[in-house]
């Protein structure tokens, strides 16, 4: 601890280097997947957040568990955007890149801004490592990096020097601390304090004092190296962002979803039953929820996705809040059972964390290409509500909303997240749970008894919802199932007109959820040249692009759909207020298809199907092109 105090003092004594203030910065730490870049990135994020910056991050790790060391496939990166103004994306181009080996350099260099800072672990640029990364000549020597401000540092060596004298540290362990040296160095560069990281180290390794020492020591060594070494001549600071007052934390989409679901369970005073089968990138939801068992969250690892959704249908029938989480291939397997939930009108939540398809596709990469599947991927007319959170924090909100709607309307609800949203880490203003309104259950009413004295499970309330009656309730025994059912009694019916009525009732019930959906709000002018209509996680990039262009004086508005079915009631009116509608999405135009179908309009589609989120710039460019086109008219 005295070490830290010393450090703090040092920081206060002005050093000879100049300090420059920046509005916002994007950095990326990249190395081999064994190099601990994710951890270093998280700690840098913590420190930035504690400093009061607005932050957005993007972790990016290899598909393989342990790809061969030093290969391009094994590169792991963590991007952090920190800012003194509100930000919505992890940033496009990098101000600074830290590359721990040649492979990391090769994979990431194209994202570095020209004149950007490039910190390289020079020790790792061995001939063998270079050739593994596919370099025949070292890029340090061939002039290809001349656009950047390159700082080769002997990180391996310096780290070793810092750590090797500590007692109880094996040579294998020594190299595992390199990430903290790098973190120290970059922390100095952007004037991030080390205390939160040191506290974390102390807690994490509390029973391994040598490891605590080693990590802390090399962290500081990196910091001092930046401070004392001549070649980094400028230190950058990013002032506090103005943020709404309140208690904040940072949170990933997966965490927020898990917490939202647990909160919903408490609000409904019903157990949450989470049945799932592991699949990337949805497994984290299971890992998060299993640790919330103490809060009435029951988890069940099923034998496959069909069993997962089956289990939650059973649990929902029993009165629990049935939830499952999956990704594309698993969703495909759930199609049939989801149809059963639709026709039995049981509440449940299906979280689909989208990844790049088709088929197995690119399992770790984000995409928004399951939208049409969740809407239409079932046999027969099988409508259900679909919501898509826009940010990690929104995952919490929409998780609660989904449970509320599912129970109130007796319907399955799909939440569309994606690999980006699930892993992305954003600061989040923590809600006060006691302020959230309880979720009420649709209990049976007197009117649900038929003339023969038997319970009629398909009587409907004013929302067209049927009563939620669970086994164990005396006198209300009833049977439900997948065959078409008679209006009111729920008995099996093959009557043609009854079938048509039931198809329409199910449709009307879901459309009726429109009244629960807030009016769509547009940012920017309420009429004008162009409206950027995004959905779900593309919010950040779309909004930032629009805002940037508004600042440049363009007539651009933007709005993000969090409710894909039913669509907000005022959407049609909004769409008709702009000359052009631009729909950016991480697929081949699925929302675009829906919008054209629903509103018979011609909209522009901007698609990106690269397993990567949009860059702000990509959207800006297209908007400008379109506006250019309009002005030529």
């Amino acid at each position: 601890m005295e070490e830290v105090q010393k450090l703090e003092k040092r920081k206060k004594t002005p050093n000879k280097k100049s300090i420059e203030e920046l509005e916002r910065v994007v950095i990326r730490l990249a190395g081999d997947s064994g190099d601990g870049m994710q951890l270093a990135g998280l700690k840098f994020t913590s420190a930035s957040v504690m400093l009061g910056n607005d932050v957005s991050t993007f972790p990016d790790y290899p598909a393989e568990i342990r790809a061969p060391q030093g290969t391009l496939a094994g590169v792991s990166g963590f991007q952090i955007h920190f800012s003194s103004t509100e930000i919505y994306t992890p940033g496009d181009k990098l101000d600074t890149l830290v590359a721990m080996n040649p492979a990391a350099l090769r994979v990431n260099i194209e994202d570095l801004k020209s004149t950007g800072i490039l910190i390289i672990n020079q020790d790792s640029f061995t001939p063998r490592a270079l050739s593994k990364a596919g370099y025949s000549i070292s890029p340090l020597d061939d002039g290809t990096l001349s656009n950047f401000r390159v700082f080769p540092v002997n990180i391996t060596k310096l780290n070793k020097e810092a750590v090797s004298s500590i007692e109880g540290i094996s040579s294998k362990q020594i190299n595992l601390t390199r990430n903290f040296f790098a973190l120290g160095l970059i922390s100095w560069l952007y004037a991030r304090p080390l205390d939160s990281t040191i506290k974390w180290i102390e807690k994490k390794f509390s029973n391994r004092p040598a490891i605590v020492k080693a990590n802390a020591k090399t962290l500081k060594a990196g910091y001092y190296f930046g401070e004392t070494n001549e070649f980094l001549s400028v230190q950058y600071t990013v002032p506090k962002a103005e943020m709404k007052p309140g208690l904040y934390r940072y949170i990933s989409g997966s965490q927020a979803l898990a917490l939202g679901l647990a909160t919903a369970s408490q609000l409904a005073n019903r157990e949450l039953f989470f049945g799932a089968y592991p699949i990337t990138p949805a497994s984290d939801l299971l890992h998060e929820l299993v640790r919330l068992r103490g809060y009435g969250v029951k988890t069940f690892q099923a034998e496959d996705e069909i069993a997962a959704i089956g289990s939650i249908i059973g649990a929902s029938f029993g009165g629990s809040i049935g939830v499952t989480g999956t990704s594309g291939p698993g969703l495909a397997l759930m199609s049939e059972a989801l149809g059963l939930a639709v026709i039995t009108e049981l509440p449940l939540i299906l979280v689909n964390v989208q990844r790049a398809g088709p088929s197995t596709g690119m399992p770790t990469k984000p995409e928004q290409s399951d939208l049409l599947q969740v809407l239409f991927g079932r046999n027969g007319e099988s409508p259900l509500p679909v919501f898509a959170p826009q940010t990690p924090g929104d995952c919490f909100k929409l998780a609660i909303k989904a449970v509320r709607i599912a129970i109130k309307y007796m319907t399955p609800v799909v939440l569309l997240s994606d690999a980006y949203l699930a892993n992305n880490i954003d600061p989040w203003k923590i809600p006060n749970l006691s302020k959230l309104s309880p979720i009420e259950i649709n209990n049976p009413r007197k009117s649900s008894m038929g003339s023969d004295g038997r319970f009629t499970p398909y009587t409907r309330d004013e929302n067209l919802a049927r009563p939620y009656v669970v086994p164990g309730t005396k006198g209300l025994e009833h049977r439900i199932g997948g065959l078409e059912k008679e209006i009111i009694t729920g008995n099996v019916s093959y009557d043609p007109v009854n079938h048509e009525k039931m198809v329409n009732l199910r449709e009307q019930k879901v459309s009726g959820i429109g009244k629960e959906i807030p009016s769509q709000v547009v940012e920017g002018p309420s009429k004008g040249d162009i409206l950027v209509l995004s959905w779900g996680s593309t919010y950040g990039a779309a909004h930032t692009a629009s805002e940037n262009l508004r600042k440049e004086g363009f007539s651009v508005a933007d709005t993000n759909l969090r409710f894909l079915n039913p669509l907000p009631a005022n959407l049609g009116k909004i769409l008709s207020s702009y000359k052009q509608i631009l729909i950016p999405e991480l697929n081949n135009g699925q929302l675009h298809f829906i919008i054209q179908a629903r509103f018979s309009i011609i909209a522009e589609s901007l698609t990106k199907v690269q397993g990567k989120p949009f860059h702000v710039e990509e959207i800006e460019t297209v908007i400008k092109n379109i506006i250019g086109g309009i002005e030529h008219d």
Partner: protein
Amino acid sequence: MTERENPLPSPVLSPKDFDSGFDVRWCPGCGDYAILANLKRVLPTLGIPKEDFVVISGIGCSSRFPYYMDTYGMHTIHGRAPTIATGLKCSRPDLSVWVVTGDGDGLSIGGNHLMHAIRRNVDIKILLFNNQIYGLTKGQYSPTTKQSKRTKSSPTGSIDYPVNPISWALGAEATFIARTIFQYPDHMQEVLRRAAEHKGVSFVEIYQNCVIFNDGAFRYATDKEMRYDNVFELEHGKPMKFGRDQEKGIFLHGLTPKVINFKQAGFDESDLLHHDENAQESTLAFFLSRMRYPEFPEPIGIFRAIQKPTYNDLLDAQMEEAKNTVTKPLQEIVNGDENWTVT
């Protein structure tokens, strides 16, 4: 958690109380009727309130079963009943959860779920109506159809080797396994009662005659003349014998069964293989499951009944434990370990 009313004292129930009032839609003469009648006789005797029974089925003629029982029920989708029953039982361990399935529903499309429910020892009661045919889809062969049988989908004879449901359930580590026959009312009621009382998964194979598409498949076991030679009842601790005069006995010969007319041969009952349904290891039960008509008489009754903690109990124990270790409200978990205040 739920709007349960106080379940005690339960009124005395009769089979009629389990009548749902639906028209039963099986073919006249279908073996399913007998099973329905027997289950309706057993349920009222269990001391469980009617509203605590749930019958979950898949798709098939047999799977229409829930509609005919005035309990809670769900007629779900093909092969998935065990998954729904598992979720229900895990979330509501207070209920008595029954699964009704067929040889197609349970062993063809649904084999995996059945196996996993069995393996986990979820406390559900599984009744497999085995008519060795797909009834509802009008007569294709099923995984239990005898090889060479001509059916709609095998006009020159099926080439599939049938699976042995009892051996199969043993391979899946079932804690309770039994077999009974649609035309053995007393036996069936006893087996169903035992299945209900078993704490853990109960797997009951019921031979059931499909009069339309596979009539007579079990004649060897139901015919008055033939049954004595082709079927024997397992009784815990008792010697295994059969025949019209109980004159034939099963002997253990290494690891294979031998049938001997032991009375003629001068053996004593005590020389016969004795049944032990509680044997911890499943080898005896497996051995018995291999005895099939026509080579051997077929054992019916309880092959195996052992105790292991149920999945749902283990799950609840972990839930309890977790709840007991909770020290802070959910709000604090939501707040997280690292947070900061913006003022």
